[in-house]
């Protein structure tokens, strides 16, 4: 183990800048996940009615706290997507290095352990930093936290690095299997494997199961503590389910779209982008799935928020003061914006990574006189093409949710607002902007200096 640790450290220290990016971003993602986990653990430990000097009374009632937990758990989804994307930064280089280790005589187990150590240590750093700051914050707002809260905090702080290391070891099983297999060329990203399918099915079963228990127990209200725990789980499971289904949808539609456009394209940039989608449809599937999820939730939320504010403003006598409602809405809005920001950075990281792995070929294209504008357009189209129909669908889904909700409540809603329909458009535009952040990198990538390594 000591030798493995030393080797992992030596390899990391000697690796290039992109691998440091992966480690830094992984640590950042782990810190975010830990932060969210700690918040959930702390809120869960609060029992009964309390007066919390934090969040405009949102944490006072058990049912409100449950809503906050749901929102936090849903925030975990884009964080996980972000982490998945970060694992791809410099992955080709890392895979080659691990294969080279195997060639040099390392046992599969040893290589897996080295890789797991690398990821685990990055997660440990992120988790440690997040835990220290969270505890400091907690002690300021809560004089004497319950033992249950401490237990939860310890559990989350340990679980994040352990999970990170496990996932990393699992995802590398193919790389490690053969010393030669992955050394030779950059391959298209594999589609989701059987494990992923199993997770999808499991989630679906879980969602249905939890839903059934909840509804059979009490069709309308969640009174007892079992239901209290099940409701956030149900929402979390459903949103994860939508997320993984979105991965399937994104990959599948990328391939179909690529195939259809590749045969019809007349413009070179469109042809290149379409063929890339057809060749490697799963490359951006995870990020695109996160974009879809954020769009559904974002559109629905924007609609619900507008409607709710109308109701709050139209109603003269409110059960709570006005800020109770607006703070809740603003907090949820902020959470969704954070999720969007995370997703967009994952998208930017993904585009930059796609560019970096292809930079030699791109330099050769530029040398052969393919204008940089064509290469840049192809890069943007690669993001823009599959997202357009997907976001249209997501926007429609979100709109259906809030319009359905608005017609169900019997308060004075007034006219159903249509402004939230603009959310998918805004998301689409920011996605294009996020992938456009790689264009300066394209400019640097096509330098003839890259040709020297051909």
């Amino acid at each position: 183990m000591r030798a493995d640790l030393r080797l992992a450290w030596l390899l990391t220290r000697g690796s290039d800048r992109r691998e440091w990016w992966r480690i830094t971003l992984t640590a950042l993602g782990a810190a975010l996940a830990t932060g969210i986990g700690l918040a959930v653990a702390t809120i869960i430990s609060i029992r009964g009615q309390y007066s919390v000097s934090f969040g405009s009374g949102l944490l006072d009632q058990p049912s409100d706290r449950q809503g906050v937990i749901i929102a936090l758990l849903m925030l975990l989804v884009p964080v996980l997507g972000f982490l998945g994307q970060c694992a791809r930064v410099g992955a080709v280089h890392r895979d080659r290095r691990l294969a080279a280790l195997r060639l040099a005589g390392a046992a599969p187990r040893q290589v897996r352990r080295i890789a797991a150590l690398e990821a685990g240590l990055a997660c440990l750093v992120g988790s440690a930093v997040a835990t220290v700051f969270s505890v400091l914050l907690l002690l300021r707002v809560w004089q004497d936290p319950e033992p249950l809260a401490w237990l939860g905090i310890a559990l989350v702080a340990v679980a994040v690095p352990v999970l990170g290391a496990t996932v990393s070891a699992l995802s590398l099983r193919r790389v490690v299997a053969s010393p030669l297999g992955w050394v030779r060329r950059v391959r298209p990203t594999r589609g989701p494997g059987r494990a992923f399918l199993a997770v999808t099915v499991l989630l679906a079963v879980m969602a249905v199961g939890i839903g059934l228990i909840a509804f059979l127990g009490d069709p309308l209200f969640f009174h007892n503590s079992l239901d209290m725990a099940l409701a956030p789980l149900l929402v979390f499971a459903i949103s994860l389910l939508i997320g993984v289904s979105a991965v399937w949808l994104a990959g599948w539609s990328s391939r179909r779209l690529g195939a259809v456009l590749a045969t019809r394209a007349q413009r070179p940039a469109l042809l290149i982008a379409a063929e890339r989608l057809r060749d490697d449809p799963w490359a951006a599937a995870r990020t695109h799935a996160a974009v879809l999820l954020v769009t559904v939730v974002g559109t629905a939320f924007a609609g619900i928020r507008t409607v709710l504010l109308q109701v709050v403003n139209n109603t003269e006598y409110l059960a709570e003061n006005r800020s109770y409602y607006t703070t809740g809405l603003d907090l949820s809005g902020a959470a969704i914006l954070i999720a969007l920001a995370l997703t967009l950075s994952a998208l930017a990281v993904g585009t930059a990574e796609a560019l970096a792995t292809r930079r030699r070929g791109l330099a050769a294209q530029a040398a052969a006189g393919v204008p940089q504008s064509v290469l840049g357009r192809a890069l943007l189209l690669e993001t823009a093409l599959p997202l357009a129909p997907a976001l249209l669908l997501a926007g429609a889904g979100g709109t259906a949710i809030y319009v359905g909700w608005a017609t169900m409540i019997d308060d004075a809603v007034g006219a159903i607002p249509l402004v939230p329909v603009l959310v998918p458009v805004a998301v689409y535009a920011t996605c294009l902007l996020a992938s456009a952040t790689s264009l300066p990198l394209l400019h640097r990538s096509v330098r003839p200096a890259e040709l020297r390594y051909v």
Partner: protein
Amino acid sequence: MSNTGRSTVPLLAARDLVKAHGRTEALRGASVELRAGEILAVTGASGSGKSTLLHCLAGIVRPDTGSVTYGGERLDQLPEQRLSELRRTEFGVVFQFGQLIPELTALDNVALPLLLAGARRQEAQAKAGEWLERFGVRGQEELRPGEMSGGQAQRAALARALVTGPKIVFADEPTGALDSLASEQVMTALTHTARESGTAVLLITHDAQVAAYADREVRLADGAVTPLEVAA
């Protein structure tokens, strides 16, 4: 050999090229002339500046000092957009590998320069098909570069370089990754087509057997051209 240059103005002329990569000087005052329709081999040990010379001549990089003249234009002073256009229309480039887009089929790869020039896909593909056939790449039009053998892929790359009817083809170790038989087929295809169409070829190689396909040889050592014959 020195008398033939008088009547014909060189197609491409480089004078006293100096180019440094960081602190290492790749070129230290190299001068080369390429006449219309001739096949010129540039040979030399690895690190002698061959590739850098090709990059300067093809307008891929600008020399630090010195001049590159093509058709009355100073390549070292042209804006990048015009250089890119020249490389697309008047020049063709072939590298050791990597010049084909891995996601495109052989046919679309060859058709790409025509598409860039604004041709319709069907026309471009038809013409690309003819060129692939000319280079003996038959029945592989729908394969991607990774699915072809090295020799076939290089011949597809030659077809892509020649499909626009360029004045000059720049080939940087085009057979560097091939065995001797595939190398012979690629070189025969290149020289036959170039001679047939009057295209000039600047061929970078460290292999004397490949250089022997050329009409003339220029030898680089330490970033400068060395005299080949002893002064009389």
